[in-house]
């Protein structure tokens, strides 16, 4: 597709525009207001996040992208309650978030399954914590295992599973608590491309069928566009919201849309935001000179 025929990434079809209008009428699930976070380190103060404002509606799928070190993980950790904001606040259903809780499930990049528990017991962990008796928790866990297609592995330990399987268990473990929000920090970052696209499809399927709002961090632009209703683009130093993009690709999503004009236009915009046109001097580059003799057996690779 040539540049000239690409639509503006903001142009939405009627159906898409209508859908966003309906989303905005849904109840607010999470509200982030004036959020800032600074870290004190030996080298001085680091402003990881600065004045983040965001409203997430019920069952919305929000992705966050931004360059490495822009504070994506810090943001999601504050939402999870694992880290305290320096300024501003986070509200879940109107209540201020100040510590971790099961109503905000979290899936980490590094799986973080409990290695000493089997798949089933891992999923039962949160259920037992919230007061289920063992029998009920077990039955519930079984259902989840069935849902994620790992029945054969219910008594396996995490080290016996592949990365994709582990991450499915981690998602089921978080969802078993019936969280209002599912927070995911680059959950598929460590997976190979094929497994990753499978996991994306699973996640869409889960999101469609379960009452949950998803907040998803990624550095993969395709992944963000494919999954998100809205994409929050952060910039680094300090971490600020650069733009919030309403993805014009219609829902429900399917892999063929990767080549649709809306998709490509959005991706182009994201690329401009994440990788701004380079300034020559502060860009790092290799300083190579020719090290192969001209009369070498293979004098040129071209």
């Amino acid at each position: 597709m040539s540049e000239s025929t690409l639509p503006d990434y903001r142009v939405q079809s009627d159906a898409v525009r209508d859908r966003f209008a309906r989303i905005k009428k849904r109840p607010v699930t999470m509200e982030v207001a004036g959020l800032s976070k600074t870290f004190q380190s030996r080298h001085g103060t680091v402003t990881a996040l600065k004045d983040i404002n965001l409203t997430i509606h019920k069952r919305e799928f929000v992705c966050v992208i931004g360059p490495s070190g822009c504070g994506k993980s810090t943001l999601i950790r504050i939402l999870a309650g694992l880290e305290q904001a320096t300024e501003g606040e986070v509200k879940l259903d109107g209540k201020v978030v100040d510590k971790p809780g099961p109503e905000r499930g979290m899936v980490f990049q590094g799986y973080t399954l409990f290695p000493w528990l089997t798949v089933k017991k891992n999923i039962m962990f949160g259920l037992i914590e919230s007061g289920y008796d063992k029998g009920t928790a077990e039955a519930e866990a079984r259902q989840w295992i069935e849902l994620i297609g790992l029945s054969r592995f219910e008594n396996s330990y995490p080290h016996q599973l592949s990365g994709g399987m582990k991450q499915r268990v981690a998602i089921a473990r978080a969802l078993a608590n019936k969280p209002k929000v599912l927070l995911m920090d680059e959950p598929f970052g460590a997976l190979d491309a094929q497994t990753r696209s499978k996991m994306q499809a699973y996640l869409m399927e889960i999101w469609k069928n379960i009452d949950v709002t998803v907040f998803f961090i990624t550095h993969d632009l395709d992944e963000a566009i494919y999954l998100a209703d809205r994409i929050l683009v952060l910039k680094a130093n300090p971490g600020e919201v650069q733009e919030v993009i309403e993805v014009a690709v219609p829902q429900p999503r399917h892999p063929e849309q990767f080549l649709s004009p809306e998709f490509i236009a959005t991706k182009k915009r994201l690329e401009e935001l994440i990788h701004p046109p380079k300034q020559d001097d502060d860009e790092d580059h290799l300083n190579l000179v020719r090290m192969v003799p001209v009369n070498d057996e293979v004098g040129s690779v071209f």
Partner: protein
Amino acid sequence: MSLFSVNKPLEPRSRQLVTISSFVLPILLWCLVSYVPFIWHPEVEITSPGSVNYFREGMLVNKTVFNAESDKASAAGKATPEGIPANPIYLPAPHEVLTAFYTSFTTEPKRSSELWLHESLWSSIQVIFYGFLLSSIIGIPLGVLAGTYDFFSRLFEPFIEFFRYLPAPAFGALAVAVLGIYQAPKIAIIFIGTFFQQVLIVANTTRKLDPALLEAGQTLGANNRSMLFRIVLPGILPDLYRDTRILLGWAWTYLIVAELIGTSSGITWFITQQARYKNFDNVFAAIMMIGILGLTIDLLLAWFGRRLFPWQKAN
């Protein structure tokens, strides 16, 4: 495949061979020194004293002394002494030590008040067992607390850090004064020797638990108590087990000191006693028994550990 590739396991066959060599090589060296007359053998065992009046049959004399006396006798035209090369009495040959393994158990003690070897060994094992058990019962919980909560870390560790530099043997006299002369002060020395290290090591192990697991637990709704009992404890258990195995090895090294205070007893007493009687074959046998006992216990614990923690990746 090379025998020396960095961080690569050997092939099974060569691995076995090398493992066996680890024991066979030192024994082979010992055999060489013991059975090949021209290797070392600095002394001469007299087979016939000849004209030298202070030589006795079976006596060990230094080679130079023997040669001097022999020269003197032949110069004077008298009967020369005869003898065969021998090693000093403190280096018995392998077969002698091997026999001692059996005979030291069957030999009656010299005095009726003294203990048989198996009784001595049993007494040693008890001292180790109770000393180490006591240390673990108190030390492991303290270590886990210090590793989990900064509060306990600040409260315990500075003092323990100081105390662990005080050598356990230095408390011998004090232990006897307070606890009497029998087993109690010995157990106390084992305790002092292991306890302080144990708290610090366990605290460190606890701190090394992947913090992401704790965070995962928190986001799943675990409260403070669950964090300790459902995440920290099971999470560190394999490492805790390994620490305990290593510390048990250390406890053995304090045994010698422990058994010398108060009334000497146990395997140490047996060793000193036998050395006094110059029964060095028994001394060697007893020392090796400690080694074999320690290694056996450790191997058993290692084997048991692999069954206890099936979630650990096989390595």
